[in-house]
């Protein structure tokens, strides 16, 4: 066997924390990569996958460093070579494609200037050949109209085009190894499919090796032949794609795969209990990093760290491999059809059009109108129904939600709740009674809870605002709310910063529940969470609906999530409804071309 392109031995990355204890971000990682091989690193946020990727380039985020172990790229350790060699290595030997390519491009320079700069640094071409090379690269990454592209500024490109430019730049030095850090996260699904296909093609044609980091195992499985699952800084299972996807062994891999919502499934995604501990809280844990969440954990798991064991083509770090292979410990719940929804309409939206600003002075002078973001949208929500609003960015789905919540004015149309409450106007014009009935939960739980208030104070506020309760009753109500979203009562005294992402989102949901609403508006509320946590939130929402008959309007870009949760769905494109109907029907038998395209891009 020839020498591997990249080999990592017993690598640990981290920093020295309080009391001189090492804090591990990445722990004892071993891997090798042959030329032309594609490896995907999958894991939840905070598992150390990005730090591992950057270490391969000899780069460590601020405050981090290599604690032990070695990296060899082509026989050289990027941590030990001279700065000049490292520079040559980074542009020529390996190249990084970051997540936000649009932000990595300089906004004030034309694309051409930026491409030329890369060629000057990382290729031996004579200046005269640069233009031709740029065009060739752009054709390689399938950018439309390469000549024109070169003369544009980054903001004139779409997100997908920017990402393609970044890939072209990475290819400029003809690297042997491409490092990709979530390169399609943030792109729309239909765009993502194209970029993934391109990456796959490049690796095959140019025989470039690739390490691809993502939280999304489905994305990884499109591009990579080898998959490594990371948890709490360690690779817990690694092997060929097909084996790993069809017969996962490690309890975490199994849990992860079971927690992903998929189209056309009869069962609900199965959550993994709890959440991954952040590095500083892992402390001097000597056992298996997953023991806190693992249904198979034994005393041995907590006492000693499992070593890698080979199983056929892969290896797994787990003490209980036999029990894990027997499966049986994950039993996903059956999807229940919505209980008789009845036909009592809760919300009706009629002919709603929305535009962002009023016409400016100049526009009104010319008799122009700024374009509407949402045009003539009508739909209804029954009592106890969960309605999904899907679409890509710019489809107006969140705008509709904000308008119903009264945070965004509308141009025309009518929104009524229970036939009596008029929700067409802004928040200020609504009586408190109808404000109470509609509550909003935001996408990012980090931003939706005031960091200076305790969880108790946050939950008490809506109670004070909408109900006249005695202090004792109020405290009980807060406890009941926490219980309802499966959080311990002791959380009352904590601040949001002390909670994990999923816990914060539970608090945000509890805050909405405090008002005893009839309709909860959910704006992508699971998309900032890890899948294993998302599954738990989806289950919570379904339980809440079953208990209290609350209706939900659920905005999401993820069709599988919508299919899992919702009774009916509206597909939006460019501010117009393309298709609407019961989930079961729309997803099985999409009529509109756009819906079909969306469904085809689901991985």
């Amino acid at each position, binding site marked *: 066997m020839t020498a591997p392109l990249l080999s990592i031995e017993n690598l640990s990355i981290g920093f020295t924390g309080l009391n001189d204890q090492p804090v591990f971000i990445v722990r004892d990682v071993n891997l090798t990569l042959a030329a032309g091989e594609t490896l995907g690193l999958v894991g939840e946020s905070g598992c150390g996958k990005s730090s591992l990727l950057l270490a391969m380039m000899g780069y460590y985020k601020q405050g981090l460093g290599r604690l032990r172990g070695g990296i060899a790229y082509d026989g050289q350790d990027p941590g030990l070579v001279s700065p000049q060699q490292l520079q040559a290595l980074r542009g020529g030997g390996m190249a990084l494609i970051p997540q936000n390519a649009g932000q990595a491009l300089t906004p004030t320079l034309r694309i051409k200037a930026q491409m030329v700069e890369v060629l000057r640094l990382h290729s031996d071409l004579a200046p005269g050949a640069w233009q031709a090379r740029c065009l060739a690269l752009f054709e390689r990454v399938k950018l439309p109209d390469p000549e024109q592209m070169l003369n544009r500024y980054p903001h004139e490109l779409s997100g997908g085009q920017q990402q393609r430019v970044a890939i072209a730049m990475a290819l400029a030095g003809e690297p042997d190894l491409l490092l990709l850090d979530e390169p399609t996260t943030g792109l729309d699904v239909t765009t993502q499919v194209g970029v993934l296909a391109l990456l796959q093609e490049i690796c095959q044609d140019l025989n470039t090796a690739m390490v691809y980091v993502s939280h999304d195992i489905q994305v990884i499985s499109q591009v990579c032949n080898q998959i490594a699952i990371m948890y709490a800084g360690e690779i817990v299972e690694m092997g060929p794609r097909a084996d790993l996807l069809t017969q996962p062994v490690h309890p975490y891999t199994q849990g992860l795969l079971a927690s992903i919502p998929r189209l056309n499934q009869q069962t609900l995604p199965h959550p993994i209990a709890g959440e991954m501990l952040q590095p500083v809280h892992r402390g001097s844990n000597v056992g298996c990093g997953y023991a806190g969440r693992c249904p198979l954990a034994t005393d041995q798991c907590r006492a000693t760290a499992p070593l890698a064991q080979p199983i056929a083509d892969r290896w797994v770090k787990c003490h209980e491999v036999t029990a894990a292979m027997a499966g049986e410990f994950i039993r996903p719940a059956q999807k229940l059809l919505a209980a008789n929804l009845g036909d009592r309409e809760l919300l009706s939206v009629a002919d709603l059009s929305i535009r962002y600003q009023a016409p400016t002075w100049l526009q009104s002078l010319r008799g122009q109108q700024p374009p509407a973001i949402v045009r003539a949208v009508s739909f209804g929500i029954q009592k106890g129904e969960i309605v999904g609003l899907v679409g890509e960015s710019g489809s107006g789905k969140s705008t509709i939600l904000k308008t119903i919540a009264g945070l965004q004015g509308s141009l025309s149309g009518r929104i009524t709740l229970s036939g009596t409450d008029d929700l067409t106007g802004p928040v200020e014009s609504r009586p408190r009674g109808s404000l109470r009935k509609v*509550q909003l939960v935001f996408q990012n739980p980090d931003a*939706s809870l005031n960091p*200076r208030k305790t969880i108790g104070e946050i939950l008490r506020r809506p109670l004070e605002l909408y109900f006249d309760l005695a202090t004792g009753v109020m405290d009980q109500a807060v406890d009941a709310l926490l219980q309802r979203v499966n959080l311990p009562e002791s959380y009352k005294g904590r601040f949001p910063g002390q909670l994990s992402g999923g816990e914060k989102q539970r608090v945000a949901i509890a805050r909405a529940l405090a008002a005893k609403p009839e309709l909860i508006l959910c704006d992508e509320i699971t998309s900032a969470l890890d899948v294993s946590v998302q599954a738990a939130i989806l289950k919570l929402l379904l339980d809440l609906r079953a208990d209290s008959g609350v209706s939900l309007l659920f905005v999401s870009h993820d069709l599988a999530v919508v299919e899992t949760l919702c009774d009916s769905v509206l597909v939006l494109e460019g501010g117009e409804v393309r298709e609407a109907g019961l989930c079961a029907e729309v997803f099985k038998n999409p009529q509109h071309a756009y819906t079909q395209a969306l469904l085809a891009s689901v991985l």
Partner: protein
Amino acid sequence: MSSAVTILKGVTATRSGKIGVVLVGFHLLLALVAPWLVPYEFDAQTAVIDHAGPSLAHWAGLDTLGRDVLTRTLLGGREALLVTIFGTGLAVVWGSFFGVLAGYLGGRIDELIMRSVDIFLAIPWMIFLLLVIASFGNAPMVMILTLGFFYGIGVVRMARAATLEVVVKDYVLAAKARGERPLSIMMTEILPNVRDVLMVESAMRWSWMLLAFSALSFLGFGVTPPTPDWGLMIANSRIYLALAPWPVLMPMIALSSLIIGINLTADALAKSLGVDKTTRALV
């Protein structure tokens, strides 16, 4: 109260922060107890030759008029501290009120407040200050009000900038959607989240105001003689610097150590609260 303790702990976590807090604390304590400490009356003149150097009776020597320099230095910061502490407090209170208001409400009101701020910033404040003192005298109250007013103008800008960052956060939107009143949103959602910036800002402003006040005294507008004051002492004795350095050096050391102390504290405060000082608005 507990948060005050946490903040103090954060500030004193670094060495420079510790030095800063000790210096400031020392000066505040001294200002409080100086009247009982000093060996002489501040205006008592000794019938010996002026500009006598340090001696056992007069540790820091005598000034032009034969007054004890140590006594005058110990007492010389009291009015400056009184005026600037209240002045800073006033500046921060009114400045953040209008700043948060402008940042939260936006639109016309924002425009009105910010353009007024621009107008006031265009006025050379030192000259304006001299005008006020000339017409209303230099009683501490007048000084507090004028300095507080002028230093609050910068606070308006800074508080507005900090508010603009907070106003777009989802928890503010959530409060709006709940139907909270604007005043309640400003008090409970915004103010606690701009508090850190405001605290760092007040510390910085305090040191600037102290310098400004001393400059005024130096020019002869701050305090009325024979009340002891550092700026005034430096002004009165500076022509004899070569002859008798003590009457100039003592107030200089006192003033600089206080300013350095405040700046070190402000830096440590900014660091421990995670406030990036470079993003603050100038002025």
